[in-house]
């Protein structure tokens, strides 16, 4: 497929993509290249990271998805290199563009400029300044191009937490500040497998009518929690040198916490809608499907990089197939796991 000739600075095209790839190859010849093979949603992703600092940014978020096998035909390749100042992305402005035919998507954000070829499934990124990367991109690197690639493959990235026991998962839904991270981390500390605290890949196979086909995949192992909530955990979680995520939340790197187990995927057996109450202990109550969709959908589809309709349809299919519950939380996060464990243990 050939893209039309494109001289517009803001609109990506074949020419700008080829230039960026050439810059990557030049950079890769001059410096050490660290190769990473990971699996995102069961799809092999091959990453080539030029220089240790870029690997030090990527590894905490995606390292838990490391794959032992190196396939000859990855589903996505990711090539990141340190760019020079003055290149796109070095001005700090957040901007996303697509080519006229939709094949290329570019994003400039903070000190990064990404260009995704959706046909060839290749992502190239120039990282001009790691210090300028905004906090949300630091915690969840490459989220816009990766979300776009996954959407092209029939998967949605949704705003929810997910933990599991023996491959049977509980999804935590709700807008920011309702307790998704607190619940997911409380369960992880209590021995559940951890898949994510507010960003999960959703695969719902339509037409099967079975909850067996609602699968959640882990994307990032980093989490973020209010400092006040963090103090309630008796077991220490791992901080990234006190680094903050968004809204003053503490950044937490879970992949290096030895007492926390991350897993790449699980079935979704229940949807939990947390809300803080004055209850003495955390309890669950059945919730209407419409309540679940109302709490799950808006923050998963508004201002996302992909069309909203498909994600909303997948969420509706999920809510139709999987039971939903209110989780009335006490002020003690350690009893959350006891409240939800009976739902997923035989």
């Amino acid at each position: 497929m050939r893209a039309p000739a494109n001289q517009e600075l803001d609109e990506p095209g074949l020419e700008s993509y080829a230039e960026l790839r050439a810059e990557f190859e030049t950079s890769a010849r001059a410096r050490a290249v660290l190769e990473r093979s990971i699996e995102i949603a069961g799809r092999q992703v091959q990453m080539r990271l030029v220089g240790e600092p870029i690997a030090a940014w990527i590894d905490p978020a995606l390292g838990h998805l490391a794959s032992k096998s190196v396939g000859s035909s990855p589903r996505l390749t990711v090539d990141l290199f340190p760019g020079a100042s003055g290149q796109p992305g070095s001005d700090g402005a957040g901007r996303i563009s697509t080519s006229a035919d939709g094949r290329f998507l570019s994003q400039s954000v903070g000190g990064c400029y990404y260009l995704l070829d959706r046909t060839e499934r290749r992502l190239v990124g120039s990282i001009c300044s790691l210090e300028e990367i905004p906090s949300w991109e630091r915690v969840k690197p490459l989220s816009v191009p990766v979300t776009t690639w996954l959407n092209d493959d029939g998967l949605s990235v949704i705003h929810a937490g997910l933990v599991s026991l023996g491959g049977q998962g509980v999804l935590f839904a709700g807008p920011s500040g309702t307790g998704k991270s607190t619940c997911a981390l409380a369960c992880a500390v209590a021995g559940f497998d951890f898949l994510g605290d507010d960003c999960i890949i959703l695969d719902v196979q339509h037409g099967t009518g079975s909850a067996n086909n609602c699968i959640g995949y882990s994307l990032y192992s980093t989490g973020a929690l209010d400092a006040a909530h963090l103090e309630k955990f008796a077991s220490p979680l791992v901080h990234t040198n006190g680094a903050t995520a968004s809204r003053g939340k503490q950044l937490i790197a879970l992949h290096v916490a030895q007492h926390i187990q991350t897993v790449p995927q699980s079935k979704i057996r229940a949807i939990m809608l947390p809300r803080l109450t004055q209850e003495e202990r955390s309890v669950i109550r059945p919730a209407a499907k419409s309540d679940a969709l109302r709490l799950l959908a808006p923050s998963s589809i508004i201002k996302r990089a992909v069309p909203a309709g498909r994600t909303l349809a997948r969420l509706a299919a999920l809510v139709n197939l999987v039971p939903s519950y209110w989780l009335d939380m006490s002020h003690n996060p350690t009893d959350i796991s006891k409240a939800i464990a009976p739902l997923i243990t035989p």
Partner: protein
Amino acid sequence: MNLDSAYAPREEVASELIDGEAIIIDLSTGMYFSLDRVGGRIWALLANQASLGEIRACLVNEYQVDEQVAGEDLENLAQQLLAENLIVPAKEPRPLDHAADETTAAKAPYQPARLVAYRDMGDLLALDPPAPGLSEIVWRDGPANERDER
């Protein structure tokens, strides 16, 4: 009320029906809405660009309500949906597949449609944006590797 009028959801509005209720999300403002069962039925008919006359006939056929009450409630809801910028006038009505004058055997209890607005998401997104600049994206559908819903 002009019974020949028809409407359609605005382009930047996403919606789904679940258990008969409609969840409606305005992607441009972050506001979202719910419509209970009678409202959900009306929304589904509006989204198919049925005329108000046809929608009223469906309501009378399916619910325990007379034509005058159904018409007044329908007009009231259409005004609310227009005020919230969720629907726009459609160029021309699209006829429904089935005839509304076939009487339904057992009619359901009727309650006027109730539109509930949730205005918190705009505030939350302002504090914690998924990514800046996304509202400016001009999305074009994917190339050949696009996978349809299975």
